C-alpha cells in the first residue's frame, strides 16, 4: 500500500499541477517532495519494525495469461533507492526556487512524473514493469531538457541522448524476452529461476544485452558520449535528476535483475564488462583533469565514480553490492551538491570556466568551506559518505581481481587531483576583477548547502542505519544466487 502511495502521490500531484497552472506550482511540488520523504520514512519504519510487511507490497495482475502484473515490493535495497529519490527531490525542487521558468507548472509536472516512474522502477518486482518505468522516465526528462535548455544545438543533443538510451534499452528488452521465453512470467522470482537454468554461455549473451542497456545509461566508457553534452545542456535541475537519480535505475538494475538472474553469465563471461568499467574510471578521470568548465568536470567525475560502482557491483559479492547501494546514495547526494555549487557560481559569474576564477575564499569563506566538504565527499575522504561506499566497492572488487582494483582504485587518487585542482583554481589564491564582487550566499543557498553537507557528514560518520537497512536484502539476494 505504501509503495503504491509513493508512486501515486507524485503522479496525482503532477496531474494537479498541470491542471492548476503556473501559480504556486513550485510550492506544490516542494510539498509533494516533503510528503514523499515522510512516506518513505514511514515505509522504513514499517520495514525496521517488521510488523505489517503487507504494507510494503502490492500485487495485482495486469495481463494475467502473459504473466505480467502490477507487482511492487519494498525491500531494503529498494528502500535505500527510494530514500535517495525522496531525499533529493525536495532538495532539487528547492534549488530551482530562485529561477523563473517559462510555464513552471509543466516543468514541475514533468519532474514529478519522472519521479513517479523512477520510484516505480525502484520498487517493482515485475521485469516488464521495470522496463516500462525505465523507459518512461526518459520522456519527461527529454522534454525538460528540450524545452528549458538554453544551450545551442539542444535539439541535436537531446535527440542523441534519447535515441542512445532508447537504443540501449531495446537490447535489454530482447534479453528480458529471451529469459521470458523460458519463464512465461515476468515475476522476478520466475525470471531468476529461468535465468539461472540457462547455460552459462546463454547467460553470457543475455547479460551482454542487459549490460549494454545499463552501460549506456550509467554511462560506462565507450557508451558515455551522450552524457557530458547532455549535462551541459540541461537546466541544472534536470542535470541533478539525471545524475542524482535517473542513472541509478541502471546500476539498481544490475543488482536487481542481472546478478540474481545471470550469476554464471556474469562470473564466466562478464569480465569484459568489469574491464570496461575500470577503463571507464581511468578515461573519465583523465578527461576530468583537462576540463576547463566546472559543469563538464562534474560530468566526467560522475562517469569515473560510476565506473567503480559498476565494477564493484558486478564483482557480485556482499561487499560489492553493499558498497554499490551505499555509493548510489552517496553519489546522488554529492553530485547534487556539486550542481548546487555550480549553480551558485554560475548565477554570480555567468560562466563556469575555472581558470577565470580564483580567490573566492577570500571574498566568501563560508561558501568555500561548504564547497570544500562536498569536494572531500567526492574524493572519498574518510568520515564522508563517499568513503564508505567506495571503500566497500573496492573491497568487493578486490575479491574478484586485484589488478582491476588497482586500476579502479586510481579513482580516489585521480579524483583528488581533479577535484582539488578545480577547488584550488576557483576558491584559493587572490581574488581577481571577476571574483571580487562574489555576492554572499542567500538564505536559500545556505539552507541547501548545509542540508547537503550534513547528509554527507552524517552518512560518513554513521552509515549504519543505511547499511543495516539494505544488509538483509543483500544477504537474501546472494542466497538466491548460490
Amino acid at each position: 500500500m505504501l509503495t503504491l502511495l509513493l508512486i501515486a502521490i507524485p503522479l496525482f500531484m503532477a496531474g494537479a499541477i498541470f491542471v492548476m497552472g503556473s501559480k504556486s506550482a513550485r510550492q506544490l511540488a516542494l510539498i509533494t517532495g516533503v510528503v514523499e520523504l515522510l512516506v518513505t520514512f514511514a515505509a522504513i519504519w514499517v520495514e525496521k519494525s517488521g510488523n505489517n510487511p503487507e504494507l510494503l507490497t502490492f500485487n495485482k495482475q495486469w495481463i494475467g495469461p502473459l504473466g505480467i502484473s502490477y507487482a511492487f515490493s519494498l525491500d531494503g535495497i529498494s528502500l535505500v533507492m527510494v530514500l535517495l529519490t525522496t531525499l533529493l527531490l525536495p532538495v532539487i525542487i528547492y534549488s530551482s526556487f530562485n529561477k523563473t521558468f517559462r510555464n513552471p507548472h509543466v516543468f514541475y509536472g514533468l519532474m514529478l512524473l519522472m519521479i513517479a516512474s523512477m520510484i516505480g522502477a525502484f520498487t517493482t518486482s515485475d521485469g516488464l514493469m521495470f522496463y516500462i518505468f525505465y523507459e518512461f522516465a526518459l520522456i519527461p526528462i527529454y522534454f525538460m531538457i528540450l524545452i528549458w535548455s538554453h544551450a545551442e544545438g539542444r535539439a541535436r543533443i537531446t535527440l542523441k541522448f534519447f535515441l542512445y538510451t532508447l537504443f540501449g534499452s531495446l537490447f535489454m528488452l530482447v534479453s528480458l524476452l529471451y529469459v521470458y521465453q523460458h519463464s512465461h512470467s515476468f515475476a522476478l522470482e520466475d525470471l531468476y529461476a529461468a535465468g539461472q537454468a540457462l547455460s552459462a554461455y546463454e547467460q553470457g549473451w543475455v547479460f551482454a544485452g542487459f549490460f549494454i542497456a545499463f552501460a549506456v545509461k550509467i554511462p560506462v566508457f565507450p557508451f558515455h558520449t551522450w552524457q557530458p553534452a547532455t549535462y551541459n545542456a540541461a537546466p541544472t535541475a534536470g542535470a541533478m535528476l539525471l545524475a542524482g537519480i535517473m542513472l541509478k535505475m541502471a546500476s539498481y538494475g544490475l543488482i536487481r535483475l542481472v546478478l540474481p538472474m545471470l550469476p554464471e553469465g556474469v562470473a564466466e563471461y562478464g569480465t569484459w564488462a568489469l574491464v570496461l568499467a575500470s577503463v571507464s574510471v581511468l578515461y573519465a578521470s583523465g578527461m576530468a583533469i583537462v576540463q576547463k568548465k566546472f559543469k563538464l568536470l562534474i560530468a566526467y567525475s560522475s562517469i569515473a565514480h560510476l565506473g567503480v560502482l559498476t565494477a564493484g557491483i558486478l564483482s557480485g559479492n556482499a561487499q560489492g553490492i553493499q558498497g554499490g547501494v551505499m555509493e548510489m546514495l552517496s553519489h546522488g547526494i554529492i553530485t547534487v551538491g556539486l550542481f548546487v555549487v555550480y549553480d551558485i557560481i554560475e548565477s554570480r559569474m555567468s560562466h563556469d570556466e575555472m581558470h577565470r576564477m580564483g580567490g573566492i575564499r577570500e571574498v566568501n569563506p563560508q561558501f568555500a568551506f561548504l564547497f570544500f566538504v562536498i569536494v572531500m565527499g567526492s574524493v572519498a575522504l574518510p568520515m564522508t559518505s563517499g568513503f564508505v561506499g567506495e571503500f566497500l566497492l573496492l573491497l568487493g572488487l578486490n575479491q574478484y581481481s586485484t589488478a582491476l582494483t588497482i586500476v579502479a582504485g586510481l579513482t580516489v587518487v585521480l579524483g583528488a587531483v581533479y577535484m582539488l585542482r578545480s577547488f584550488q583554481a576557483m576558491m584559493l589564491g587572490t581574488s581577481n576583477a571577476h571574483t571580487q564582487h562574489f555576492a554572499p550566499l542567500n538564505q536559500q543557498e545556505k539552507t541547501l548547502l548545509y542540508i547537503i553537507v550534513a547528509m554527507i557528514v552524517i552518512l560518513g560518520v554513521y552509515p549504519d542505519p543505511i547499511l543495516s537497512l539494505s544488509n538483509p536484502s543483500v544477504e537474501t539476494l546472494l542466497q538466491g544466487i548460490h
Partner: protein
Amino acid sequence: MIISLLGIVILAVDLIKMRKLVLPVTIAGLIALLGSCIMDWGHHEVPFAQYGGMLLFDNYALGFTMVFSVLAIFWFLMTSDQYEPTSSKKTDLYALSIFSICGAVVLSSYSSMVMLFLGVEILSIPLYVLAASDRKNILSNEAGFKYFFLGSLASAVMLFGIALIYGATGTFDLQTIATTFATGNYSGLMLTGCILILTGFAFKVSVAPFHLWAPDVYQGAPTTITAFMATIVKAAAFAGMYRLFATSFPNHPQVVTSIMAVMIALTLILSNITAVTQTSSKRLLAYSSLSHAGYMLGFVMMSGNAPAKYLMFYTLTYGIASMTSFSILQHVSSIQGGDDSREAFKGLVKRNPVMAGAMTVSLLSMAGIPPLSGFLGKYYAITQLLSGDYLALVIIMILTSAIAAYYYLRLIAAMFTPIENAGRIMTGGLQRGMYIVLTLLLLVTFFAASLLELIEV
C-alpha cells in the same frame, strides 16, 4: 442481420439529397454496425453465415469489423471539417468510403476465395477514385492513376493465384483447401497459387519489395484519404491476409514463411532508412506506415499459432495514432500553404498546444515508447516472433525501431522549437475533442490491454 445493417449504412449515403444529414446518418449507421457486432459477439460456435456460407461472421470477422467501424467513426468525425457541408463532393466521398468499408468487412469475413477477391475489389475500386479525388491537383491524379494501374495488376496476380489453387483443389472454400493442404501431398500448383496470392496481398498491404507505389500514392492523395488508406484499408488488407493464411495454410510451407521473413526484413530496413531522408512529413508518415506493415506481417507469418487478437490490437492502436498524426499534418500544412516540411511544425506547441500534444503522443506511440499502446503492439509482435525462434528478425525490428524513434523525435523536437511571432492555429471544437479523446485512448488501451486476454479470437 449485419449485412442488412450494412445496407442501411449504404442507404444512408443515398440520402444525399439531404446533404446536411449525411454525417449524422453515417455515424449512426456505423454505431449501429458496431452495436450489432457486439450483440453477435460470442456466438462463434454457430457462426453467422451469409450468402450460402461464403461469408462467415465468426468472432474474428466481428472483431475486425469493430476495429473498422471504430476507426471509421473517428475518421468521419475528424475529417468532417474538410469539406463544405453541402458540397456534392462530400457526399460522393462519403459514399465511396462507405463502399470501401463494405469491402473491408467482406475481407474480414470471407470463407470462400470468391468472396476474398470480391472483397479486395470492393475495397480497392472506390479507393482509386478517392486517391484521385483532388481533381485539380496533378499529384492527386498521378496517385489515382498509379494506384489504379498497379492495383489492378496486383488483383490480377491474386486472381491467378486463386485460379491455380482452384485448379489444384477444385474448391474455393477455405476449410476444404485447408484439409487438402493438411494432408501434405499437394502439388506445386497449389504452392505457386499460394505464393501468387501472397504477392497480391503484399502489394495491397504495401510491404517491400512491392511497396514502391505506396509513398507516391500516399503523398499524392489528399491527406484525409491518405489517413483512410493508411489505417482502415491497411487493417482490412491484413485482416484478409491473416484469415487466408490462418485458415487455409495454418502450417505455412517453409518457402512461404521464408518469403514472408525476407519481406518483413526488407520492409523494416528499407522503409525506416528511407524515412530518415524524407523532407516532406507526409512522405515520412507514409514510410512510417510502411514500416508498421512489417510488424503486422509478422503476425501473419506466425498466424499458425498466434491469436488474431494481437493483430487486431495492433491495427487499432496503430490506426488511432496514424489517423491522428495524418489529420494534424493536414491542418498544419494547410495553414502553411501546403508546406509540410519539419519547418512547418516549428513552434506548434505555442500555436496549438492540443495539436502538439496529440501529435507527440501519437508519434511516441508509433515509436513504441511505453506507456503508450504502440509499445504493447510491438511487444506482441516481438514475442510472437521470438516464440517462433526468429531471433534475427527480432533484432532487425529492434534496430530499425531505434531508427524510427529518430525520425519521430526529430519531428517532435521541431514542434517544441520556439519561433518568432507565430499566430495560433485554430481548430474546430469537434476536432479538438477528437484529438484529446484519441490521445487518451492510446493511454487507456495500454492499461486496459489485460481485457484482450479475456476475449477469444
